[in-house]
């Protein structure tokens, strides 16, 4: 089956460090992947979309990469801040136009 997986349930880092989150996919080749941020009890917020022909995309302190050989997308937050603490969801497009999410990685940035 077509899977999208975020293997780390939680990631704890120190303020100022770079957080790197991983999203792996198997048994298909997505045209693009998206990353969302979700705070507790709130709706997911779109952060970045990267297409299969793009190696890297940046937005302020955020960077996402797409490696079709490794079947993996990496999401980086540089100079992390406690305010970056949240759950980050990787998502692919489902056959019905819906989003199919990974289980998410809960990031905690300690001051």
């Amino acid at each position, binding site marked *: 089956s077509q899977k999208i997986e975020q293997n780390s349930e939680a990631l704890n880092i120190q303020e100022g460090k770079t957080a790197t989150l991983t999203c792996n996919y198997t048994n298909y080749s997505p045209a*693009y992947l*998206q990353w*969302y941020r979700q705070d507790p*009890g*709130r*709706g*997911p*917020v*779109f952060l970045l*979309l990267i297409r299969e022909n793009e190696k890297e995309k940046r937005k302020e302190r955020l960077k996402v990469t797409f490696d079709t050989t490794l079947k993996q997308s990496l999401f980086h937050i540089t100079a992390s801040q406690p305010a970056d603490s949240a759950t980050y*969801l990787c998502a692919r*497009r*489902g056959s*019905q*136009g*819906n*989003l*199919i*999410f*990974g*289980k*998410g990685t809960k990031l905690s940035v300690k001051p």
Partner: protein
Amino acid sequence: AAGVIQSPRHLIKEKRETATLKCYPIPRHDTVYWYQQGPGQDPQFLISFYEKMQSDKGSIPDRFSAQQFSDYHSELNMSSLELGDSALYFCASSLASGSGETQYFGPGTRLLVL
């Protein structure tokens, strides 16, 4: 900028009761999606509408139905509520005629079934 609006934000119901959740998409967005997110889970697709017509169905129970009205707002109707229906329900909207890939989520309705 206007965002997706959902109401109510919180809802408490008894088992076997009915509930209606409302969603107002971003103006000019033509597609609405409903998702259910259980505790500690990722959002799961329920149903979608494009230009007021049902577009696709995901894992939506037969007890649930939804529609989109002429003003593009959508309602999710849930009947014979069960304890397991307790979850966060999100509505998301997108513009299919644009890139269509990015979905903008509302703040959600937290449903508690007692």
